[in-house]
């Protein structure tokens, strides 16, 4: 199930523009890794390169190595589509499919991949995923209603349920709470703590308290100036990053004295 990710000297380009330069890190299985840093420092780009989602943008390419428990994600014979089946993703804005009901949204990954399962098995997947996303009790009586009728926080948890329904090894979260209110944010953070038992989680966040609350390890990204590539300044246990980081820039950032 949960797998580790090893990144070695990863540089990410958009066309000729170097967006992220030479990042190396190791992400342990069944842990929560938070990526923090100012806007535009490339942390989202880095996150999306882990499951090759950035390839959707024309001209995007990478140099360096990403491996999932030893298997090269960018290997010449590796299919980007199968990478994404192993490394799921949750986005900043909740994006349930508007033509589908709650039930259909959860099994979208199974069904859209052409999988045919008997109804009983699908029911099982839906209940397990919705329970996993802590949403089951709120929606179990209205599974046939459209997913877009839920509140923002519920929609985001529906998206998490949809992502874990295909049983990925790793779950990437790109600022999953930035469009949500504090109550919904709390619900998602509790959920992240639960999900840690089964999944490797990487979360990008602007909220440093959130990083401190949910993560085991924290990586700090920074850029020197606009137009310069983003770099991983420091990565360490979250408690270390927020109490006695080794880099001055990290300390300035986490203590709010940045810039």
């Amino acid at each position, binding site marked *: 199930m949960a797998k580790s990710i090893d990144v070695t000297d990863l540089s990410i380009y958009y066309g000729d523009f170097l967006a992220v330069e030479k990042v190396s890190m190791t992400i342990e299985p069944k842990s929560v890794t938070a990526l923090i840093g100012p806007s535009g420092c490339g942390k989202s780009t880095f996150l999306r390169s882990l499951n090759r*989602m950035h390839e959707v943008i024309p001209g995007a390419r990478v140099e360096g190595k990403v491996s999932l428990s030893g298997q090269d994600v960018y290997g010449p014979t590796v299919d980007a589509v199968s990478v994404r*089946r192993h490394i799921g993703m949750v986005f900043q804005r909740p994006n349930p499919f508007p033509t589908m009901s709650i039930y259909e949204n959860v099994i979208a990954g199974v069904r859209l991949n052409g999988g045919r399962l008997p109804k009983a098995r699908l029911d099982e997947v839906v209940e397990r995923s919705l329970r996993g996303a802590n949403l089951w009790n709120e929606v179990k009586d209205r599974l046939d209603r459209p997913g*877009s009728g839920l509140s923002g926080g519920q929609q985001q948890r529906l998206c998490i349920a949809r992502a874990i329904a295909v049983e990925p090894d790793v779950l990437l979260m790109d600022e999953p709470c930035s469009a949500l209110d504090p109550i919904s944010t709390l619900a998602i953070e509790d959920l992240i703590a639960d999900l840690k038992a089964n999944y490797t989680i990487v979360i990008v966040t602007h909220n440093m308290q959130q990083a401190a609350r949910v993560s085991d390890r924290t990586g700090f990204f920074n850029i020197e100036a606009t137009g310069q590539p983003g770099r991983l300044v420091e990565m360490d246990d979250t408690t270390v990053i927020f109490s006695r980081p080794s880099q001055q820039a990290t300390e300035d950032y986490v203590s709010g004295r940045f810039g």
Partner: protein
Amino acid sequence: MTAVNAPTETPTETDAAPGLESHRHLGTGATWGLTGAGLAGGALLGLLAGSWAVGAVAGLLLVLVALPGVSWRVEGARRGKDRAFTVVVTVAFLLALLPLLSLIYSTLTNGLARFDPEFFTSDMRAVLGEGGGALHAIVGTLLITGSATLISVPIGIMCAIYLVEYGKGRLARMVTILVDVMTGIPSIVAGLFAFALFSIFFGPSIRFGLGGAVALSLLMVPVVVRSVEEMLKLVANELREASYALGVPRWRTIVKVVLPTAGAGIAAGVTIAIARVIGETAPLLIIAGSTTNLDWNIFEGRMMTLPVFTYESYMIPGVPPEPGVDRAWAAALTLMVIVMGLNLAARLIARLFGTKSR
């Protein structure tokens, strides 16, 4: 206890914060009264001049002067201008609506005379003078337009998918330009194209329904491409990303996520395209021909259509002319009813299969 909270003084205009102007307001009654007075004045002038057109124009002009004028004096300059533009916009709306209402009215009054069962159950074989019907034309129109839809909708949707999801660079730009050019093709040219194409294979006397369908689809494809393209562009990119992130390949994302999300809009666009071509006369006159007989075979033989039937019944009504003219109006009415039905069907489809929100 309310006395404690009650204000010690009733607020007056002098209590208003400095700089906030207060003004008098023209009520609903006064507004409508002024409008009515203006129109009545116009009607009076029209009676004096002996022309209803003079009356209508004078009435509208009077309202345009009276209502904003009074409002300017009573309510101030800004509200006066607001009234003036409200009147202008309303008049423009009425002017746009007028031809439509007149058209519906005259088609109904003239067309109902022969809008009877016989009209829908018989063709024009061996009919001279009264009687006869447009069954052959209705069947022809449905067959030819249906085939044109079958040809152009798949081509149009796939072309739009290419432009939105795959097309990059020179080829996509060229396709876009070609589609724009095709939108402007005169329908007679489309008919001549189909005729020229099929006379290569079947000789210059070729007339058949499918040729008409090809001509119509030439007109339909660009309309379908344009409207579907717009609808696909409206589908949020986040939905595509959500699908990719689940490990769904691109083509499945398009088929299962993008197209259903845009489904209602696509259905509406296709209906508009059908409505655009169902009334075409010129191309069908050339390639589908005209006949008095019912023909179910689209691949062979001349095929009558409602627009051509209307045209011929009106231009060559026979002696005496009244039955032919009545049939022409009834056919026009039938065509309008079909288009109306299509529009309703599109709305129904949009409601049934559209994005669910609640």
